[in-house]
């Protein structure tokens, strides 16, 4: 559907010459700067350092991790880029002022089990879903 429109736009341009808006090239969006690429970073939440070892029996803490970095072309360079990320990138390229780039966020989260005392000195073993980032990607 875009092919016909593009041909029409090109015909319009030929009749009404005007400077086309500069569309950023692939080079502008390549993620050669690996420091800013979307990836998983380690972050450890320590129950011990929070001073909670009097009521949390186990674990001492957990590697929660977080996602950080830019989502830009080529999206394949990032882990698990979604179809939405491609669409978001296209819309961003067309309207960079108003539409942000895709978001670097968790794509896979794991659970942890926590063993702790309650106020009555009863002990609780509970599974908490989505506590540990296992993989990041572009959404």
């Amino acid at each position: 559907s875009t092919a016909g429109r593009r041909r029409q736009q090109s015909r319009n341009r030929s009749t009404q010459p005007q400077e086309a808006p500069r569309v950023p090239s692939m080079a502008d969006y390549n993620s050669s700067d690996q420091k800013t690429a979307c990836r998983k970073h380690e972050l450890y939440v320590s129950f011990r350092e929070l001073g909670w070892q009097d009521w949390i029996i186990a674990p001492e803490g957990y590697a929660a991790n977080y996602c950080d970095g830019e989502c830009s072309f080529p999206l394949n360079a990032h882990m698990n880029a979604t179809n939405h990320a491609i669409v978001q990138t296209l819309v961003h390229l067309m309207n960079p002022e108003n539409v942000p780039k895709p978001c670097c966020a968790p794509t896979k989260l794991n659970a942890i089990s926590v063993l702790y005392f309650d106020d009555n000195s009863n002990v609780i073993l509970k599974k908490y879903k989505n506590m540990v980032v296992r993989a990041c990607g572009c959404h």
Partner: protein
Amino acid sequence: GVNFLLDGANEIHASFIHRRLRTHEKREMQKEILSILGLPHRPRPHLAHGKFNSAPLFMLDLYNSISGGDDEGLQGLLDHYKPAVVTQSPPLATLQDSTFLNDADMVMSFVNLVENDREFSADRRHHKEFRFNLSQIPEGEAVTASEFRIYKDCVSNAFKNETFIISVYQVLQEHEDREADLFLLDARTLWAAEEGWLEFDITATSNLWVMSPQHNLGLQLNVRTSAGHSMMLRDAGLVGRDGPHSKQPFMVAFFKVSEVHVRTTR
């Protein structure tokens, strides 16, 4: 309490400002983590008998049996369960517990609050009472299985060649002038020489106690010889409050979430 570890390239992310959290920021962060854990405030347990009574030990056994299997969480327990993780002999956690765990989202052990020795002169009937507080179960959690656990030591007294019948009752109603109304939950016949943890199924009773805490009047336990004579629980080798901490009686319940947990807006 939040540490930034070194990345794979052995450097902290360049754009990240590394600083200590201010006191109020740390307090807010603690509140957020407590909220994620579904707790309104930081628990303040009274650990008069130390952290590692029988109930925490049992729970630690369960925790150790699932640690390393977090990919599947409690669901993968049957595959990962290894009786070798049990830290003492005889084992606290059994394979039956692992079966319950397979279907559980939460496991909770309950400390025995009361242990009264009673003796009625009419028929010299001895029994012990036990009470557990099930009033603070998080909303939306349903009991899938529940056990009362009591340790039996090997008997080396006058009863050493006896067979015992141990009965567990739910207290239905208490009376000042006569014995309480009881409902038999479970009974077990044991040799005096047997040693280890006895498990009594109290699932239906626990469900009732969670639904209507006013009906929670506790459990009664009594022991009779094969000839029908009532006897002291201590003489049958049953460990009570005066026994070692690691062999104290306790209750354990397995729960499944029946409602979606929604974090409350603060």
